Structure formats: C-alpha cells, structure tokens
C-alpha cells in the first residue's frame, strides 16, 4: 500500500511542471505571463505545504506520538522554502532575471531534496502507520489539493 506516497508524489511532479513553465516564460522575458505563472506555482506549493501541515502531519503525529521527528524537520524546510519563494517573487516583480534564476535554482534543489526525503522516508512511514485511516484521509488530501489545481 503506497497510496499516500503515490498521491503526494504526484502533486510534487505537478509543482515541478509549473516551475518549468515559469522558467520558460522568464527566459522569453514575458514578465506578465511569468508573474502570473509564478503566482500559480507559489499557490500550488503553499497549498501542498498547508495540506501536509494541517492534515497529514498531525495525523501522523497523533498515530505515532512522534512530534519532534521527521514532520518537524519537514516543517522547518517548508519555512526555508517559503522564504525562497518570496525572494524569487520579489526578483520576478523587479524583472531581475539573474536574481530570479539564482533564487529559483536554489529553490529547485531545496524542493527536490525535500521531496526526496518525503517520498523515500516520510510518505512510506505515513502509508505504514496510517493504513487504518487511509480511506478517510486520502479523499480529504485530494479535495484540498485539487482545490488549487482547478
């Protein structure tokens, strides 16, 4: 059973795709579309964080009693990525392609190594420990994330 892992990893890929689309727009110097695209990207990422922090992590912490474990590390990394998202947005609004690309590159690696920890370690743990409540939990995760995808 790896339902949580599959679903949440799928959302990671969706965010990656939007990130790549923005990069194309920045390279074309189409600032209006790039800013609009970045807003969609930022919103998708923040929504993903929020679904984890408000639904998935508390359920995991409740079930395992591990409150200072992996979920705490993930929350810390979310905070780091929120800062990078904001820095990238500021650069984009200022039409500073170089500064955007530096922040975006850093964000990309931060995001990918974070995803790797989640997909290889935390989500499998969630699938294992939350197997009893997956039928109730998964639709909630889906609804909240789909709200941003539309």
């Amino acid at each position, binding site marked *: 059973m790896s339902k949580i892992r599959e679903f949440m990893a799928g959302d990671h890929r969706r965010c990656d795709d939007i990130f*790549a689309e923005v990069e194309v727009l920045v390279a074309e110097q189409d600032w209006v579309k790039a800013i609009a695209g970045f807003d969609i990207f930022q919103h998708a990422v923040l929504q993903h964080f929020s679904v984890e922090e408000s639904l998935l992590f508390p359920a995991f912490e409740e079930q395992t009693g591990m409150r200072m474990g992996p979920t705490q590390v993930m929350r810390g990394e979310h905070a780091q990525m929120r800062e*990078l998202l904001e*820095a990238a947005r500021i650069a984009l609004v200022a039409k500073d392609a*170089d500064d955007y690309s530096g922040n975006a590159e850093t964000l*990309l690696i931060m995001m*990918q*190594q974070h995803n*790797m920890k989640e997909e290889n*370690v935390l989500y499998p743990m969630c699938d294992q420990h939350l197997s009893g409540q997956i039928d109730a939990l998964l639709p909630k995760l889906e609804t909240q994330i789909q709200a941003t995808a539309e």
Partner: protein
Amino acid sequence: MQALLSFDQAPPISVPLRFFLTAPLFAMLAGALLLWSGPDLFASRWTPEALALTHLITAGFMLQVMLGAMQQLLPVVAGANIARPRLIATLVHATITPGTLFLVAGFLTYQPWLFGCAVVFLGLGISIFVAATAFALHGVPANSPIILGLKLALAGLSVTVVFGLLLALALGWSFDLPLIQLANIHLGWGFVAWGCAALGAVGFVAVPMFQLTPDYPGWFGRSFAYSALGFVLLWTLAELAAWTMAASLLSVMVVLIAVVFALTTLRIQRRSKRVRPDPVQRFWQIAMFSALAACTLWLLARFSPLLEDWQGWPLLFGTLLLFGGFMSVIVGMLYKIVPFLVWLHLQHRGRGLLTAPNMKKVLAEVHISRQMVAHFTAFGLLVLASFWPQWFVYPAGLALMVANGWLLRNLLAAIQVYRGHLIKIEAVIASRQP
C-alpha cells in the same frame, strides 16, 4: 528502523567539503605527472606512470568526491544518518588520502613498503567507510532505486578494493598471481559495479531533479544496479574458472550495461523542460557521449584485430571513460552540491536575521562555464595525446593542471562566501545583544 526515526540535519559542512577540496589536488598531481613523465607514459596501459595516473584520477579524484558525496546524500535520500559524521569523515579522509599517495608512489618506484602502506591505509579507510555506511543503512528498506543502487554500489566498491589490495600486495612482493586477469577484474568491478552503479543511482535522482527531465523508466530503476553487479559477478566467476567463451560473452554484457545507462540518460535529457542547458547539463551530456565512445571503442577492439594490436587503444579508452565520462559528471555535480550546501548551512545559521546568498551568488555561473571550457580543453588534449603523445602530452598535462586549479579556485571562492557571510551573521547577533 532506528535510522528512519531520527532523520534530521545534513552532516556538518566540513564533512563533505574536505573530500571535495582534496580531489582537484589529486587531478593537479595527475597533470604534473604527465609533464614529468612525458610521452613515455603512453607506451602502454601497464607503464608505471600510466598506472599511477589512473589511480590519481580513480582513487584520488573520483573516490574522494564519491565518498564525500555519499556522506551527504545518505541522510537525504534514505534518512540514514552516519553516526559521529565528523569523526568518520576525519578517519576516512586521513587514511585514503595518504593511502592513494602511497599507492601512486608505489607504482612509480615499485618499493614493497610503499605498496604495503597503501594497502594498510586504503584498506583501513574504505573499511571504516563501508562499515559506517552499512551500519547507517542497516534496516533501511531499499524502497527506492537510489537506496538500492547505493547499497549495491557499496558492495561493488568493497570488491574493487579487495582485488586492488590483492594486486598491490602481488606487485609489492612479486606473488605469483595472474596479474593481468586480476587487474581486468579489478577494473570491471571499479568501472561498472562501483562507478556505474553509483552513478546510475545518483543520476536516477539527479538528472530529473537538476535538469527537469522525465524520470528514468521504471525498469531502469528496478534492474540497473542489480544487472551491473550481477553481470560483473558472473563475468568474474567465468574469468576465474577460465570459461573463455562465457567470460567473453559476459564481458560484452558488462560493457553494454554502461551503454544502456548512457543512452537512457541522453534520451531523457533530450526531453528536459529547462529552456537552455546550464553548464551542469553540458557536463552530463558530454560525459554520456564520451562514455558511449569509450564503450564503442572497447567493443571494436574486442572484435577487430587491427585495433587490438594498437597499444594506444586502452589508454584512449581510459581517457574517454575517466576524464570525459566520470570526471565530467563529478565536476558538474560539485557545482550543484557545493553552492547548495553553502546556502543551506548559511540559511540555517542566519535564520530570520540575514538572508543567505542564493546559489548563483555563492558561485556565479560564468565561473562555472569558464572552468568547464578548461576542463573539456584538457580532455580534448588528453584524447589527442593518446594518439600523438609526443606532441600533446605536455599541453595535456598543463591543461589538466589549469582546469583543476580552476576547479579548486571556484570551490574555494564558494567557501570564501560562506566564511564572509558567517562573520556578517555573527555581527548581526552581536549587535542585537544588549
């Protein structure tokens, strides 16, 4: 499962950096060796200088970076924290560095005591590393190709080193062993079961991650590392049992493993979503083409007596594989890992007080691009030197020193940014205290 519960911070930045900073020094030594030995080095793959050069690159450059990177990577990809990371890094670094120097000196002088020291130091260093990582990985389920790949690559490294130590002892004390056969086995394990398996595992994650390509196909993740290790193992058994026909067939399979990796990587790279390839993508691309060229050469030499008679082909093969293939990928990876680590640690230290400089402010792309040109110039000259050593060996040696001096300079510049920013963070903290 204990490792999973404590997955937390990356190891201190000094843990991987000491390995990354030592590697270019060995490559510079390799350049110096070319200048010192001149065209004689290229007389055959068995000249003492050619053996010394090979090991300056494999044990001096590749092994250093790969061990450093693995200590950084394991906590991230597998939640496997190495206990006492600073101590382990110090012990491993302080043994494999002199160990490699002893080995190279051994090749150049054939003094038994130098081979003896190399065996002790390298054996000890690799044993400590393998034990520490195996302990960290113990109980971590191999639920992703990178974890599986790294576990199998560690096994590949261990066997490579065991055969290497055996060869060093045999050379030092003139044991009656089938040296050429053992050297080929050592090479097969080193290039494919360790090098290719480790690169396959890392590439499986890093290529899609850095270059926004589609994922490697599922069959690749499931079977690449097993196939690499499996075919090398079968081939070794066939070689040792002197089943000539089977060994010959299996050796072709071993080389085809590398071909599959290079072709798959190039295929997904063509579908990268990034607008323009950054230097690191170039490093990967050229590395894969170079590895393909090496494998083609090997297969041609296997079936064409004309080529087989040419003493220079193994040297050209080694140049394509080591300098064009492995080294290019490794340099490219360093340019992602080091600036990211600097940012990560600064961000952590200055949280909320001072924004950390982003990766491109830590090391500007223009410096990476320029060093890349130097690296590929050195590679091109080395290829030419394997055809016409008398003309190209000196420019190649010099270019290799320049390219790696430049790499070292770039890495040190990133560390300078790190140090400078730390001072700023401390100043902010001091100014906030009443």
